[in-house]
C-alpha cells in the first residue's frame, strides 16, 4: 500500500460519515411521520430480502478445482437454516451451523 497517512485518514473519515449517513437516513429524517400501508408492507420484508442475497455469492462460490460450491459450507448453511426454522432462535442456528461446518471440514 502506497497511500499517504493523510489519505488513509481521509478514507476512514469519509467512510465513517457516509456509513452513518446511510444508517441514519430514513430513521433520522422521516422520524415519526406515518408511512403508507404499501410501503410498510414492503419494508417488513427487508431482512429476508437483503441478508440471503448478501451471503449468496459467498455460499455458492465455485471452487476453482472442483467447479462446485464448497459442500461443507453448503451443509453448514442447510443446518443453520433448518435449526433456525425449528428452534426459532438465531443462536442455536449459529451454533448448529458452526458445528456442522467444523465437522464437515474435519471429515474432508
Amino acid at each position, binding site marked *: *500500500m502506497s*497511500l499517504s497517512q493523510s489519505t*488513509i485518514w*481521509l*478514507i*476512514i473519515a469519509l*467512510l465513517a460519515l*457516509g*456509513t*452513518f449517513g*446511510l*444508517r*441514519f*437516513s*430514513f*430513521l*433520522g429524517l*422521516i*422520524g*415519526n*411521520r406515518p*408511512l403508507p400501508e404499501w410501503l*410498510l*408492507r*414492503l*419494508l*417488513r*420484508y*427487508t*431482512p*429476508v*430480502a*437483503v*441478508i*440471503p*442475497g*448478501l*451471503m*449468496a*455469492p*459467498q*455460499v455458492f462460490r465455485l471452487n476453482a478445482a472442483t467447479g462446485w460450491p*464448497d459442500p461443507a*459450507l453448503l451443509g*453448514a*448453511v442447510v443446518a*443453520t*437454516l*433448518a435449526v*433456525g*426454522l*425449528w428452534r*426459532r*432462535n*438465531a443462536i442455536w*442456528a*449459529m451454533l448448529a*451451523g*458452526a458445528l456442522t*461446518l467444523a465437522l464437515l471440514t474435519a471429515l474432508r
Partner: protein
Amino acid sequence: MTPSDPTPPRRAYWQGLRDGGPFILIVGPFGLVFGIVATEAGLNVLQTMAFSIAVIAGAAQLAAIQLMVDDAPTLIVLITALAVNLRMAMYSASLVPHLGAAPLWQRALIAYLMVDQAYATSFLRYERDPGLSVRAKVAYYFGVITLVAPVWYLGTLAGALLGEAIPASIPIGAAVPIAFLALIGPMLRTLAQVAAVLVSVLGTLALGFMPYNTGLLVAALAAMATGAAVEVWTARRRPQVRA
C-alpha cells in the same frame, strides 16, 4: 406501566442483552481478523481502531482495506465500501415504523450501532411483539448491541496489537455466512417470506455482473416486492386469515 405495555424497558433491555450477547462468538473473531488484516496492510494501531470504531461495519471495512492494499483510487475505495453498506439505508427505512418516534439522539445512536446482527435480532422481536412500546423497543436494541459493539472494538484491538503472533489462517471467513443466515431461519414463517428469500438469492446470483455490488440492491428490492405481493395474494385467497 399499563396493561397494553407488558414489557417494561428495563426488562426489554435485559432480553436484548440475552438475545444479542452470544453474537460476540462471531463478532470477536471477525474483529480480530480485521485488526490483523488492517495492520498487515500497513495501517497503524490508531488508524485500525479508528476504522472499527468510526465505521463499525466489518464487511465494508475489509472491502476498503483490500482495495487500499491494491492501491485503488480513493474514490473507488469509498464507492465500493459504501456500496457494501447501502443495505443499511434499507434497514434504516424498515426501522422507521418501530423506532421513528424515539428522540433524535436515540435514533442517531441506533443508527451508529446499526450492524446486521443487532438490526435483524431487534427487527424480529418487533415483528413478533407489536405491543412493545417505543421505549421498550429502543431498550431492547441497546441491549442487543451492548456486548456486540465493545467486543468488535476489542477484537480489532487484539488483532492490531498481536498481529502476526496469531496464525494468519483463522478459518473465520467460512463462518461468516453462518452468522448471517442464522438470523434468517427464525424469520421464515410465511410463504411470502420464503418467496422473498428465494428472489433475493437467485436475483443476487443472476445480477452478479453489476458493478459495486449493486445487483444485491436490485435483487433485494425485487425480493421485497415479491414478499409484499405474495402476502397480498395469500390474504386474498384466504380472507378469513386476515384479522
